């Protein structure tokens, strides 16, 4: 195994970002706006003011978790595309427990909500995981399409049995005070950000320093070889999907208890937090540290969209355009990561000199 080359990795992450911003700039020029001004407002306010930066961290918290949820499975080549559905499921029932179960103790209530959210995420992740591990059903397309089934089921639950009667639009009842995370200071950040950070550190430790983390990489490289050397791949797939589902469930619960407080049909935004997680995992190249940086950067983009709406006349959908272009370019490796650019030039030179020698 060759040592990791950071140069090409970094290049492959940064080039798509630059390309996406470039395309965004061209679009803004086309409608006669100043792109530099817009970018200055977008990133300046969300990264370089104290309140803006704390808000950015607040929105980054669930994104770190969904990013990890996706990275942990992608690294093992399992492709859990169902993070969005798992997050919605977890968030919904955490909200229901938060609203209907009266527990006076705030800590206990939150723990119960997180427990339920996690459990829901795990249950929903287990369906494709069991099918994959024991029946070899392609989990990518199952997880992908089950998101839509889950969204429909929750839509039914939110409009039917759990609908808040007095509300003018479709939503579930607001969670009780004891389940809410309160804002710290005058920004939106809550103590959930610290919870997310703690979980992030735990996952980092798991991926870098434990046997399981090593086995994930081994399965990702070659599952048959991993099986042959004694990794129980079936069981590891179930375990990975369970961890991924749990992380998604926690992300959904945290978002519910620290930001939304009730389930609406646009709970997770558009595109949802789970899809954002995929972009973050790709941008961070599936490494925990990369994901943390990517989540903060991405969250800055998201909060920046509101600022763009407020302070400029550029439609804030420009941010969604930039995001999707970024994903598009992130799907392709511009530079091969095993052999860096220099190696390739060297190799080519050798071939040429060989050819010349003949």
């Amino acid at each position, binding site marked *: 195994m060759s040592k990791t080359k950071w140069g090409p990795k970094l290049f492959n992450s940064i080039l798509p970002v630059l390309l996406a911003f470039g395309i965004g700039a061209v679009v803004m020029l086309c409608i006669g706006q100043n792109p530099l001004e817009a970018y200055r407002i977008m990133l300046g306010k969300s990264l370089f003011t104290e309140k803006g930066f704390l808000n950015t961290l607040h929105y980054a918290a669930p994104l770190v978790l969904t990013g990890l949820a996706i990275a942990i499975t992608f690294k093992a080549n399992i492709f859990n595309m169902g993070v969005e559905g798992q997050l919605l499921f977890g968030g919904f029932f955490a909200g229901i427990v938060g609203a209907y179960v009266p527990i006076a103790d705030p800590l206990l209530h939150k723990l119960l909500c997180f427990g339920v959210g996690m459990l829901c995420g795990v249950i929903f992740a287990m369906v494709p995981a069991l099918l994959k591990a024991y029946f070899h*059903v392609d989990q990518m397309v199952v997880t992908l399409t089950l998101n839509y089934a889950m969204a429909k089921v929750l839509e039914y639950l939110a409009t039917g049995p759990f609908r808040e009667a007095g509300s003018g639009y479709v939503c579930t009842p607001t969670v009780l005070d004891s389940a809410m995370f309160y804002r710290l200071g005058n920004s939106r950040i809550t103590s959930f950000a610290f919870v997310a950070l703690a979980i992030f550190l735990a996952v980092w430790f798991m991926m870098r320093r434990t046997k399981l983390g090593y086995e994930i990489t081994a399965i990702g490289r070659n599952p048959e070889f991993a099986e042959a050397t004694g990794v129980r791949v079936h069981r590891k797939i179930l375990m990975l999907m369970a961890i991924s589902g749990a992380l998604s469930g926690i992300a959904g619960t945290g978002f519910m208890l620290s930001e939304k407080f009730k389930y609406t049909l646009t709970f997770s935004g558009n595109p949802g937090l789970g899809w954002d997680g995929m972009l973050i995992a790709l941008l961070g190249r599936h490494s925990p540290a990369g994901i943390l940086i990517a989540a903060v950067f991405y969250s800055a983009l998201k909060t920046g969209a509101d600022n763009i709406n407020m302070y400029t006349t550029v439609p804030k959908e420009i941010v969604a355009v930039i995001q999707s272009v970024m994903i598009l370019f992130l*799907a392709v490796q511009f530079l091969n990561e095993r052999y860096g650019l220099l190696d390739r030039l060297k190799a080519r030179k050798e071939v040429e000199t060989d050819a010349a020698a003949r």
Partner: protein
Amino acid sequence: MQLLGNILYDSVYHTTPILLCVLGGIFAYKANVLNIALEGFMLSASFVAMLVTQLTGSLVLAYLAAIASCLLLWLIFSYMGVTKRGNVIVIGLAINMLVPAVAGFVLQYMNTANLTVPWLNVADLKINIPLIQDIPLLGKMLSGHPITTYVAFLLIPVMGILMFRTRTGVYIRVVGENEDAANSLGLPTNRYKYIAVLIGALCAALAGVNLSLERMALFTNNMTAGRGFIAIAAIYCGRGAPLPSAMYAIVFGVARALAVNLGLFAGPAAALIDIVPYVVMTLVLTAVSVIKRRNNKLRGFQVG
């Protein structure tokens, strides 16, 4: 009787876009470049068709522009996914996100929530078949659809012939089944993948135009509402064969029609019928996998 007639008519009505996506998508499925961007292709055609109709007032231009927009997306998808060998699922998702973002951007820029064409009466686009339209029930079901609907159903045998009886179709399947073997025979594998995705793009363009222009002369963002993914489910259920896949598309279209019509009686619970395609797909995939591996005696975990 009235309800039954409505359900039958709506079944055909809701089947059309799904069926078109399925018939186009099976080629990409067979060529092993799963195109989950059908949803985005469809939405882009819907959007561009309405935009061009509103701006120029020409239906012909609208159809052409819709197809052109899908061709552009086709080039992006194929270049990234086939030539540059990126992850096609990620690229597909990116396109699915890109199209509503661009549409939302343009709508916001035009300061409107949706596109309408007041001068166009959608009833004029519907074709009433003489004789057949007088048959009770059957007439109501078969007659009075826009041209694309009839094209969609005629495409079922056409696509069957294209896939099994022409060189292109056979080579597309060869490339999908064993790319290395195809390469060793000197087949230009990338070219056949491009063609496979192209067929999907053209069909999705028709589906998109059907969805916005022909049905309601209205575009709202995200109006495709997961139809592309229902099509993916149908393709997987039918294992990419034209007739079975089309049958699943029809089943899912009927499920959608039931969900819409029974919503009047059952209330929100009728929306649960919408999950039928996904549940059916999961069950079919499991069943197929179980049958395929029933006699598997190999130890341990195998890929695929």
